């Protein structure tokens, strides 16, 4: 089949796609006609058959007890995990002490200096302002704790990522073996694997760092491999002809050539590590995340925001600095950019001296801690605003009703029918449905993975809650796509609109999800509706961005010709831009689905129920059997949703 499609000329693609899709569906129908009666006779229809379920409660409880009983004495813990844990604690502590020792003035000065070298004056000023804002919000110490945690977690992620990336970049076979592993690591919602990490390492920083590494290492690995593969063959040949050994070739040619990808990988890793820093607070990671989490417990949105803003600021600063560093090193050869030469070097020296002087001045003045009086209390006005909003919007808005009514209607008219529909279908029909969606979009492999992943939730004994979670994801994705694509279209057509949107999207994307869990409850009540609302808020920016970018990249020639034929704006959009941006839209769907799933799970904290509740329950009660099974089912759902929405031609490009 692969050779067939390859032979068809590119322009005829839509027609071919249609024909191919019909053929795939026919084949599927034939398979179903044979298999369904068999399955039906053997296991009957309805919900997932008991005969195909494996109960893991007993073995998992056994494992959990074994770990707790042997954690203080077994060699595996004494000589391996214990050292890992100690090493993490020692390094985080070392970084933290350095940051405290530098004092707030020193940290700000050095941060600005680094930003200036990497990204220019404007970013340097922004960085200094961001650090000072963290202090002003009264969050200096937690910010330093988070920063210390992040430094260690990012370094570890980069080390792991580069090692995996080297393996994948240098060996075709290892790359093939690693790809599904990285895929899985990336679609795992972070909440799902906190519990096993906690069980082995206990509550606290080591567990938080390790969970972060699992989450943040894959982009580094992917981009390293991509960079190594993409090295210019002519340069490599030249190096070879000079008689370089394999190691020399790697160190002097391939790695420097991959610098741009490596820096992009670093950027992605930092972003993911920061988003994990908050989730890790659930297992005692400390720092800003813990402040957000504690504020959530006392229903204090203002305090949660005060701790959330430094996270956003850190994310924006780190993003701009690493992205700028990546762009600089990418185009011009190293050395010509950024004003080096003698004047540049002198400037650098002066700046370094100035930074050290500021740090020392802070030290001698005895002002290492951020002065308590220099803080701005934002919690109170924020809470008043939130209070006003919920007072006036929750119910009793004339004509349109209040948010509580909408939430009720959304639950009754959309969430309930979708859930009941999915749970009412015979189990084999749900699997067939997944295959029928996945196969025409992707390859038979992706379709098979999707079907097996969904079947695995049945085998684990959580078929019903999985479908409940699935129904929430579907509803949230539908809302996200409608809003996201509409906004994306607006942003693509007007540069002004886009400029206005950019900071808003930045904030939504990096603001910890915990911050808006309470406002959504205040607006939508307890239940599945607030979980869906939180998920929409979180996934929207990615969908808007990808849509806008996809639309703007549509071939201008095609648009020009449409305009010359007298097409209206709406016609251009419908008939040219949207069809041509189809790959970007599919990518938006894929990203939307994965992001929505991550938050719908956290929705377990506001009454979302289903798998999210089980995961939270497992963590809260230390119940490995419930928590791990729910976690595994979430992973399976994530895999299924990712594969179902993954177009066949995207796999090669993924990661860029």
């Amino acid at each position, binding site marked *: 089949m692969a050779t067939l499609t390859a032979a068809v000329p590119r322009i005829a693609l839509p027609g071919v796609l249609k024909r191919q899709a019909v053929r795939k569906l026919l084949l599927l129908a034939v398979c179903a006609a044979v298999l369904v009666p068999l399955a039906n006779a053997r296991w009957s229809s309805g919900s997932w058959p008991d005969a195909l379920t494996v109960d893991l409660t007993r073995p998992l409880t056994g494992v959990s007890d074994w770990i707790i009983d042997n954690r203080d004495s077994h060699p595996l813990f004494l000589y391996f995990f214990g050292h890992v844990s100690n090493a993490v604690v020692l390094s*985080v502590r070392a970084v933290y002490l350095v940051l405290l020792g530098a004092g707030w003035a020193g940290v700000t000065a050095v941060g600005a200096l680094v930003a200036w070298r990497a990204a220019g004056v404007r970013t340097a000023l922004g960085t200094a302002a961001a650090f000072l804002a963290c202090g002003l919000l009264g969050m200096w110490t937690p910010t330093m704790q988070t920063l210390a945690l992040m430094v260690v977690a990012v370094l570890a992620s980069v080390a792991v990522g580069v090692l995996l990336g080297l393996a994948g970049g240098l060996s075709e076979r290892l790359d093939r073996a690693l790809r599904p592993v990285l895929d899985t690591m990336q679609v795992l919602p972070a909440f799902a694997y906190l519990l096993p990490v906690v069980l082995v390492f*206990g509550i606290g*920083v080591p567990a938080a760092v390790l969970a972060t590494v699992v989450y943040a290492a894959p982009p580094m690995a992917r981009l390293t491999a991509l960079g190594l593969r993409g090295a210019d063959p002519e340069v490599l040949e030249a190096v070879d002809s000079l008689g370089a050994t394999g190691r020399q070739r790697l160190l002097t040619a391939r790695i420097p050539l991959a610098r741009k990808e490596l820096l992009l990988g670093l950027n992605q890793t930092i972003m993911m590590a920061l988003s994990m820093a908050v989730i890790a607070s659930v297992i005692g990671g400390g720092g800003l995340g813990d402040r957000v989490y504690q504020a959530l417990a*006392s229903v204090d949105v203002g305090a949660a925001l005060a701790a959330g803003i430094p996270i956003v600021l850190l994310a924006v600063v780190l993003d701009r600095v690493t992205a700028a560093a990546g762009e600089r090193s990418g185009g011009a050869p190293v050395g010509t950019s950024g004003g080096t030469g003698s004047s540049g070097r002198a400037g650098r020296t002066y700046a370094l001296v100035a930074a050290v002087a500021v740090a020392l001045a802070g030290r001698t003045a005895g002002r290492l801690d951020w002065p308590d009086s220099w803080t701005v209390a934002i919690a109170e006005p924020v809470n008043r605003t939130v209070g006003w909003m919920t007072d006036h919007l929750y119910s009793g808005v004339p004509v349109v009703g209040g948010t509580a009514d909408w939430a009720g209607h959304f639950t009754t008219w959309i969430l309930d029918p979708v859930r009941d529909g999915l749970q009412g279908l015979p189990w084999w029909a749900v699997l067939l449905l997944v295959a029928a969606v996945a196969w025409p979009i992707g390859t038979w492999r992706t379709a098979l993975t999707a079907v097996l992943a969904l079947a695995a939730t049945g085998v684990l004994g959580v078929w019903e809650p999985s479908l409940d979670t699935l129904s929430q994801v579907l509803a949230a994705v539908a809302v996200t796509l409608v809003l996201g694509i509409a906004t994306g279209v607006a942003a693509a057509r007007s540069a002004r609109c886009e400029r206005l949107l950019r900071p808003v999207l930045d904030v939504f994307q990096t603001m910890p999800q915990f911050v808006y869990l309470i406002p959504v409850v205040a607006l939508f009540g307890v239940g599945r509706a607030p979980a869906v609302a939180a998920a929409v808020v979180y996934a929207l920016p990615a969908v808007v961005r990808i849509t806008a970018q996809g639309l703007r990249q549509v071939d201008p020639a095609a648009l020009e010709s449409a305009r010359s034929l007298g097409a209206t704006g709406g016609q251009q959009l419908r008939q040219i831009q949207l069809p041509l941006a189809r790959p970007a839209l599919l990518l938006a769907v894929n990203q939307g689905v994965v992001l929505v799933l991550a938050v719908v799970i956290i929705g377990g*904290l*506001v009454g979302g129920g289903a798998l999210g509740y089980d995961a939270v329950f497992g963590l809260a009660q230390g119940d490995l059997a419930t928590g791990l099974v729910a976690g595994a089912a979430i992973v399976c759902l994530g895999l299924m949703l990712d594969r179902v929405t993954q177009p066949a031609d995207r796999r090669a490009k993924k990661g860029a």
Partner: protein
Amino acid sequence: MRVRTTAAVASLVLLTGCGAADMTKQASPFANAQGAKTLTLSVQSWVGAQSNVAVAQYLLEHELGYRVDTVQVDEVPAWDALSQGRVDAILEDWGHPDQEKRYVDDKKTIARGGDLGVTGHIGWYVPTYFAEQHPDVTDWKNLDKYASLFRTAESGGKGQLMDGSPSYVTNDKALVDNLDLDYQVVFAGSEAAQITQMKQFAKEKKPFLTYWYAPQWLFKKVPMTEVKLPAYKEGCDVDAAKVACGYPHTPLQKYLNADFAKDGGRAAAFLKKFKWTTEDQNEVSLMIADQKLTPEEAAKKWVDGHASTWKTWLS
């Protein structure tokens, strides 16, 4: 090359202390920074627990010169963390017999720290404005009559019984089944979500039925009346599947890490003596959760007004 590897391995071994690493002795990396005496307290997600910690923290810092770290951890993981020394004390425990047996009796890594002075009670509650209109709702036998009034979009045609965080002790699902009630348990997922929802209901004077517990500051903002469940008798809740009785009254307990209890000096002695009343706790909780004071400000206010109470904890 060989030399370098050996040196690296040797320094790694030196760094990590040669032999076995003790998983029971691991403090937070943020503890004792810059030579300060530090201890770590665990805070549970409800506000009462925050109040205990806030006052203890304030006195430890201002009267005894300690630096106090707090970590928010759910109840069962907190026991685990306590046994490993990640946290030094739990100030409010609502009864975890399995954990007590495992860590206090068998492994002896956790020591009892005595009564907190507050008695806790779990129950089902309706808002008082509703109980006044329908006085018979306060007996569980009449609950079915009102099921339709408690219905929400989430409860699927039955009445809604709202439960809170998954970390709380609850038999409600079994109770609804065994008492054959026309209700659906809806889990709010966290105490914050539950409180937010209750406040919204109360603002509109809507009827609701909820799992709730005393002591709780929210009673001052949203007066609630308990619904009588079949009386609690010792042992009636042993079999989770057959339970058909209400919840006991529990004197809340403190627990300390065993090593800390022995070598913790003045801090450990102070925490063992820490004992106050339900009213005291509610006073601080109300300041934190409703007047939105920071825990530190609330603790300071309470400490300023109750010197005679806390002076005895320091002696």
